[in-house]
């Protein structure tokens, strides 16, 4: 990463309010726990294509708790976390959890598709790019994983391999804390917003 790119990345990350820069050679991020609601910033919306070429927006998932995992096939620590996310998706989909894997492979789907098939990844994958990485603070170290609450705000970020328990605790906290106006999830796992007063 060039100095300018690093400065830009840190500036963006600081603006998003989730990075603290330490004395280590690379920026360190400390956000193991879920932030209080008032400290959360809105997660930047993105439009990225999935394996079928369909455009996926983060905003499509509003009302759900979303794990946004930046990863790559060449990232060994990512391979530890992926089965965790598969498990979490399986257990919590009905409660309103969605996992979105943002692949950062330069080789694109040619590399990602066979890898995903070999692991049997059960959640949606999209192809990331530098622009999206910049929107999220200049994601450089992989894995970098964001926990997005039902209101579309960044509740936590994990840079590098994190414990499964940290993810589980964060997800549980977010799933049990509905956004204002959201009462419950329907059978399909969609957030149900109560009708406005007077409407039928």
């Amino acid at each position, binding site marked *: 990463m060039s100095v300018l790119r690093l400065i830009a990345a840190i500036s963006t990350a600081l603006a998003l309010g989730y990075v603290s820069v330490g004395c280590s050679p690379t920026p360190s991020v400390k956000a193991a726990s879920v932030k209080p609601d008032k400290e959360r910033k809105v997660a930047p919306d993105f439009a990225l294509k999935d394996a079928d070429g369909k455009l996926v927006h983060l905003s499509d998932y509003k009302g759900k708790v979303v794990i946004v995992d930046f990863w790559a096939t*060449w990232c060994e620590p990512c391979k530890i976390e992926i089965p965790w996310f598969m498990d979490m998706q399986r257990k919590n989909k009905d409660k309103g959890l969605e996992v979105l894997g943002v692949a950062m492979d330069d080789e694109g789907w040619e590399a990602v598709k066979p890898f995903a098939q070999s692991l049997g990844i059960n959640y949606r994958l999209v192809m990331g790019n530098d622009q999206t990485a910049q929107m999220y603070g200049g994601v450089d170290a992989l894995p970098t994983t964001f926990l997005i609450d039902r209101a579309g705000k960044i509740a936590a970020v994990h840079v590098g391999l994190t414990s499964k328990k940290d993810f589980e605790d964060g997800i549980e906290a977010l799933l049990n804390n509905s956004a204002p106006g959201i009462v419950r999830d329907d059978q399909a796992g969609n957030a149900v917003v109560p009708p406005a007063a007077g409407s039928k």
Partner: protein
Amino acid sequence: MLLCLPLLAQNSGHLSVGEPQKVSAKRGAAVEAKIRLAVQPGFHVNSNTPSDEYLIPLKLTWKSTGALEAGPVAYPKPAMEKYEFSEKPLSVFTGNFELTAHFKVAANAPAGPGAAVGQLRYQACSDKACFPPKTVEVAVPYSVQ
């Protein structure tokens, strides 16, 4: 033999490439260049023969060699290291190490200076995270006598 200076010329992320020393060689002679590399403490790069098909190997390829004919590049013996994120040891390079690039000066090479220019591709990780693959330029200056 072509020897590199200990001075680190290119620092690209987590790996630094030493600045090669200019060498003189006669027409038809076989020469070799030592290219010194240094991985930042706390990090490793995949070796030239990584343990997994998806891992990106360290690889030096020549773009142009001028009056030199490129031969094989010799890589050091990798270390097999176990990390928190890997179930089995990985084939990696850490710390300071050298590549040896073999050349032969063409029999009809014109006298004078030149440079063999190549690209070194690598991918680095710490014990918690990995970083995108990078490509840095490597230049070996020479002079044909």
